[in-house]
């Protein structure tokens, strides 16, 4: 008995007449994918659906009771709670400050470092180093450097006669400080993407253009910049989405303060959900964030497709 069962189960699918090669291949493919898929369903898609429900409940983490309240949380965020628009404003300022600064610096560095010269490896290594460093470590050091009077940055500014502000204690300066330190941390990544794109362009076009007697600026303006457009658009969307994700950096450097001056959307979700235990409201915020990111992703995919044509 056992033997027959064993023979049946260990029989290779190939020998089973009803399992044609096509179906066998399909079965195998799904088996290959199943670990990814099952994990994805449990830890990503399921939770994603759950927040749709959560966002429509009034749910206090301490009392563990959920009551269905429809769209109240969204109404609360969009029309009642002034904090929400303050947070959106902060997130937009953060993105508007970070994205152009990051991209302009990335492109400048890439243009300078896309050709081999003495020291090019050194500079690339230096500009990329913060990318691999933990955001917490980076924020700890910058928080230290940006202290009011004792901070190294202000002491150095004093040498040249500038009386630096108490960077992390004044809302506007704190926002500026967070943006700039974030740009320094992440610009290396965009620089690398630009360098990869530039090297392909330079290989193909530059010699021809130079033979025609074009100046450096003309080459950039007429050839390089248009050809970089697809890369630029992709980098722009990735960087914008990335700017909405920033949490650890702000957590460590300012904790959303001072006076909520650096309270951005990602931090607001954490704060409402895990500090104030307002699960329903935090979930509504998460939904809003999801929609923002989805819109940006669709833009990116469309752009990328157009770039390929």
């Amino acid at each position, binding site marked *: 008995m056992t033997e027959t069962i064993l023979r049946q189960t260990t029989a290779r699918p190939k020998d089973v007449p009803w399992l044609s090669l096509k179906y066998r291949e399909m079965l195998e493919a799904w088996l290959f994918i199943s670990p990814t898929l099952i994990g994805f369903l449990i830890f990503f898609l399921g939770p994603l659906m759950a927040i749709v429900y959560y966002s429509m409940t009034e749910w206090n983490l301490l009392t563990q009771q959920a009551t269905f309240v429809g769209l109240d949380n969204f109404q609360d965020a969009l029309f009642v709670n002034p904090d929400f628009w303050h947070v959106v404003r902060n997130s937009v300022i953060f993105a508007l400050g970070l994205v152009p600064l990051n991209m302009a610096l990335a492109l400048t560095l890439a243009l300078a470092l896309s050709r081999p010269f003495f020291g090019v490896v050194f500079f690339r290594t230096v500009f990329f180093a913060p990318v691999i460093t933990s955001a*917490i470590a980076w924020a700890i050091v910058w928080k230290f*450097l940006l202290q009011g009077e004792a901070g190294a940055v202000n002491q150095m500014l004093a040498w040249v006669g500038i009386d630096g502000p108490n960077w992390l204690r004044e809302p506007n300066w704190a926002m500026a400080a967070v943006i700039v330190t974030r740009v320094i941390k992440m610009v290396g990544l965009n620089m690398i993407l630009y360098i990869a794109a530039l090297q392909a362009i330079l290989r193909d076009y530059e010699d021809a253009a130079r033979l025609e007697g074009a100046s450096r600026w003309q080459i950039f303006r007429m050839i390089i910049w248009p050809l970089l457009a697809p890369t630029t658009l992709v980098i722009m969307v990735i960087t914008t989405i990335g700017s909405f994700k920033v949490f650890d950096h702000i957590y460590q450097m300012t904790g959303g303060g001072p006076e909520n001056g650096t309270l951005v959307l990602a931090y607001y979700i954490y704060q409402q959900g895990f500090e104030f235990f307002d699960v329903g409201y935090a979930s509504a915020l998460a939904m809003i964030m999801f929609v923002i990111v989805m819109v940006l992703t669709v833009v990116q995919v469309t752009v990328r497709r157009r770039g390929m044509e």
Partner: protein
Amino acid sequence: MTQRQIRIIYRTCWTLALLIVAIPFVFPFLWMVSAGFKSVTEIFGAPSLIPRVWRFQNFVEVFTYQPFARQYFNSIYIALAVTALTLVISSLAGYALARMRFAGAGLLMLFLVSALMVPEEVTIIPNFFLIKWMGLMDTHWPLILLPTFGPHGVMATFLMRQYFLALPKELEEAGRMDGLSRLGIWWRIALPMSRPALAAVAIITFLFSWNLFLEPLIFLSSLEMFTLPLALSNFTDTYGLPLWNLQLAATTLAVVPILIVYLIAQRQIIESFALSGVKG
């Protein structure tokens, strides 16, 4: 001036400009190491890059203030576990998506792509309840499971798929003739040819896990379970103010080994990120 002289001056100016721009990239690392060796009084005195008195005691106190060695070990083994798991799972799925024909592949891809950019903040609240329901609070399981199966794992899958697509099919067909199963082809032929992609996935995954912060912050509560980023942010006194010299000494201990590996393998590491950025 000759053309050559102009070019030399031009080059020198560029290099000088680059050196100036490089200051805020390098300076924080130098300052971190230097402050890690200073005493509290010197830290707030006149700034100098070289400590007047080298206080090695800081690096001892780091280990007595918190179970820092244990936390260090936690970070290493979790990052290794996430990396190993991600390598296996993403290369399996990536191989199927690249090479095998099956109904629903297109839809599945669309499904996965949509996850790529979604921030972890979006799903963290339901995941918190899920992990709690599973009884895995204050364990390392969520720090292994969530990164492996979240958007980062999807990114790794696509990176692998892209690489498999570019491989020549002939070898795999030959393997098939020799009677290898699909699993055999994946293991014996496709994977050995994909070392660069596997290395890239390994590098970015290790660093992703190593630098993870939100999940440890939410799921861990006891000091012995902390990972490095959480431990670093925890060097504060009873008023919540940073214990600067200890914190910076600990940060030095956490950052410098990674930097050394980076300096040795910078080319490989930078290329891995370029690959993931372009494909992902």
